[in-house]
């Protein structure tokens, strides 16, 4: 029995220059950050005011900061992927090895979904929901903080893999048998499993928290059918988390049992069934995409009436559509693997169910458009983001319906057409929706609005960059380019270069957004906003009663740190470390109720 499990000095050796660069970067950034905190004297303030805070607003802000940091990492990965594919037209093979390329696209997908998109929505939900239902805080402030710190622990595990060992190279959903020990003998898949296991539990806890908050803590007189739309869509999204995330927990645990304890759930030997993994992971994975996008539908339902100076058109149908989407999300997962042998009849059923989701989504789109109809529309940036959203999201929706026809999907599955489709939905829907909500609610918390001129620049750059980066992928997919290729056919190179230019435009857009934040903070006197700068009638804009300061506790952060250590122990088979971390966390979790019975 080895004290360090499978960890050894060799685990620190990275094989390629790019990987070594990343390793050095992470080490320098981490030590630099820690040293700066210690010597600048901000540590104490940070600890008191932020890290130990149980205030939903501060927790929300910390989620957004996490998303921002991980977003930089995700964009760096995207840059590596795009430049590789643009330069690796055979006979050239670019500058990344096949293995390293696979690691990067896996990390990119995992980071963007779990550590950018999820924290973005949890950040918004934390900031806005208690204000919208006018409750003092969430139902369980401590668990709220715990969710945050567990998510951070997961994110840290992903980044730790840059320093020690390597990350999974089996894609953002690691299908067996590739992800089994026989074919992925390194620790990459284990990092994946534990980063997501920890972050997944965090999401589940948040769902319980926000569902309880929305159901039991609404202000006096706010009946269900009085709830603002953002609250409704958050309710739908959190219901999906509640029913979908346990399946992720199961499937990750079973994969780990296969890898670490020699079991045979998904192996290709002794009766294991890889298709069971594919079914379970997509039974979680399809709801997940609606978990991400539903809250942003809610954002648009707040933004569009405000800037059209009209009441939301068709509130009741909006509620019904939201709940219909919530329910239908669980009935379509097979569309992710039409080609994997389910048979014509099963495929037909799931194809039709998938097309059915377009109906409630269409209802929503028309409701927003009818809200604008004959309204007095003002094109402030949040409204622009809505315009960007409708025009791009509809394209993605139509390509999605195209993919839901099993016959067509046989041709397009796992081509870059699919990659274009889901980026179309995630960037057009989730990312643009977040920007709309962020600019819209920013003055509520900061007391000043964001600079409009730079905001408009960022908007136009994002929309152009998005179109230039992803429309070529639709064409390339139709030309037969499959996804995840580290070298490409020369005939595809021109369009891949266009796509890389698109990414450059997106990077410029992000730079403008950072500048927008800085400039706005500088000019906050001039941008000063009253308590209701957009003249909205929604409840969150009404002045709030003063909040009694919630108490602080560092326990959640300590449990987060222990979860990181425990996850690290699991990855490297240091069982003692994992057990110790779990035991100490349990004690920390159990002790507080003893103090105030």
């Amino acid at each position: 029995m080895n004290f360090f499990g499978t960890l050894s000095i060799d685990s620190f050796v990275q094989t390629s220059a790019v990987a070594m660069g990343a390793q050095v970067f992470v080490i320098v950034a981490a030590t630099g950050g820690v040293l700066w905190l210690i010597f600048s004297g901000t540590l104490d303030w940070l600890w008191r005011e932020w890290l130990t805070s149980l205030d939903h607003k501060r927790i929300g802000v910390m989620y957004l900061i996490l998303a921002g940091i991980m977003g930089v990492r995700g964009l760096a990965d995207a840059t590596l992927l795009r430049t590789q594919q643009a330069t690796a037209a055979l006979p050239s093979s670019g500058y990344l090895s096949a293995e390293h390329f696979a690691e990067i696209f896996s990390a990119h997908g995992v980071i963007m979904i779990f550590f950018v998109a999820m924290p973005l929505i949890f950040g918004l939900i934390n900031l806005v929901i208690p204000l919208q239902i006018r409750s003092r805080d969430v139902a369980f402030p401590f668990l709220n903080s715990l969710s945050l710190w567990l998510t951070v622990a997961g994110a840290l595990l992903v980044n730790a893999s840059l320093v020690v060992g390597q990350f999974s190279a089996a894609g953002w959903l690691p299908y067996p048998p590739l992800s089994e020990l026989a074919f992925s003998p390194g620790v990459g898949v284990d990092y994946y499993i534990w980063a997501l296991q920890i972050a997944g539990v965090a999401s589940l806890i948040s769902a319980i928290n926000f569902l309880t908050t929305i159901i039991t803590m609404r202000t006096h007189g706010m009946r269900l059918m009085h709830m603002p739309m953002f609250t409704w869509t958050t309710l739908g999204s959190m219901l999906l988390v509640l029913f979908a995330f346990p399946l992720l927990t199961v499937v990750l645990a079973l994969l780990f049992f296969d890898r670490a304890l020699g079991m045979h759930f998904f192996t290709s030997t002794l009766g294991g069934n890889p298709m069971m993994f594919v079914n379970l992971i997509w039974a979680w994975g399809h709801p997940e995409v609606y978990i991400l996008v539903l809250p942003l539908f809610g954002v648009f339902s707040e933004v569009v009436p405000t800037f059209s100076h009209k009441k939301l058109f068709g509130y009741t149908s909006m509620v019904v559509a939201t709940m219909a989407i919530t329910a239908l999300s669980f009935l379509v997962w097979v569309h992710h693997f039409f080609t994997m042998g389910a048979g014509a009849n099963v495929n037909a059923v799931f194809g039709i169910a998938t097309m059915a989701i377009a109906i409630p989504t269409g209802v929503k789109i028309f409701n927003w458009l009818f809200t604008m109809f004959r309204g007095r529309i003002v094109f402030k940036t949040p409204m622009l983001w809505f315009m960007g959203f409708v025009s791009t999201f509809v394209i993605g929706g139509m390509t999605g319906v195209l993919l839901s026809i099993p016959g067509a999907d046989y041709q397009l599955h796992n081509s870059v057409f699919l990659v274009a489709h889901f980026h179309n939905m995630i960037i057009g829907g989730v990312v643009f929706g977040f920007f709309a909500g962020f600019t819209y609610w920013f003055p509520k918390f900061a007391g000043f609005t964001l600079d409009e001129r730079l905001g408009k620049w960022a908007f136009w750059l994002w929309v152009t960059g998005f179109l230039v980066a992803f429309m070529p992928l639709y064409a390339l997919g139709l030309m037969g380019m499959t996804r995840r290729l580290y070298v490409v056919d020369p005939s595809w190179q021109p369009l891949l270069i266009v796509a890389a230019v698109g990414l450059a435009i997106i990077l410029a857009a992000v730079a403008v957004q950072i500048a927008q934040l800085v400039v706005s903070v500088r000019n906050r006197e001039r941008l000063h906003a009253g308590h209701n700068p957009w003249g909205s009638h929604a409840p969150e804009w009404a002045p709030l009663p003063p909040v009694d300061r919630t108490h602080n506790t560092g326990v959640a952060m300590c449990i987060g740190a222990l979860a990181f250590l425990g996850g690290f122990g699991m990855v490297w088979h240091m069982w003692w470390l994992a057990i110790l971390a779990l035991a100490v966390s349990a004690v920390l979790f159990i002790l507080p109720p003893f103090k105030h019975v």
Partner: protein
Amino acid sequence: MSTHQHNHSLFGLWLYILSDCVLFAGLFATFAVLRGQTFGNLSGSDLLHLSTLLVQTLVLLTSSMIIGLTTQAKSRGVILFGLAATFILGLVFIGFEIQEFAGLVAAGAGPGHSAFLSSFFVLVGTHGLHVAVGMLWMLILGVQVWLHGTTHAFSRRLTMLALFWHFLDIVWIAIFSIVYLLSTTL
């Protein structure tokens, strides 16, 4: 901590139990898919020994009844007695399960020997783990009532524990029927 808090925690626990149902549903589905994949090793009907199963089931059901009655009790002594009795019955249940698992491993039918055995061990073991957590919870509540007597917060926690324990009963009935009884038809 008012009655308000009470509603929150209880509601939250119900939500957790719902999500746990999905977790078990995933494991049951996996078991259903893999239960024929015995690969020449033991199969479901080999695991069926009705006498111990009957004892296990009765023990768990009785413990559920006791904790249900305990939630109605007022005096510290009775509550402590009820918690202790439930704990011991839980221990007996787990004891039987460990014995069954150890026997299988000794007979060369551990979880790594076929897909069927993997799914069996993990499904039944996950339930066992839940029972163990419930017992830990009992221990904590026992210490609390010992130290502080029956406060308002305490009776809330006891109700929640009882709810959780009943839920584990229901899962066990499903395991009993699907894993053990249905295996005879294979």
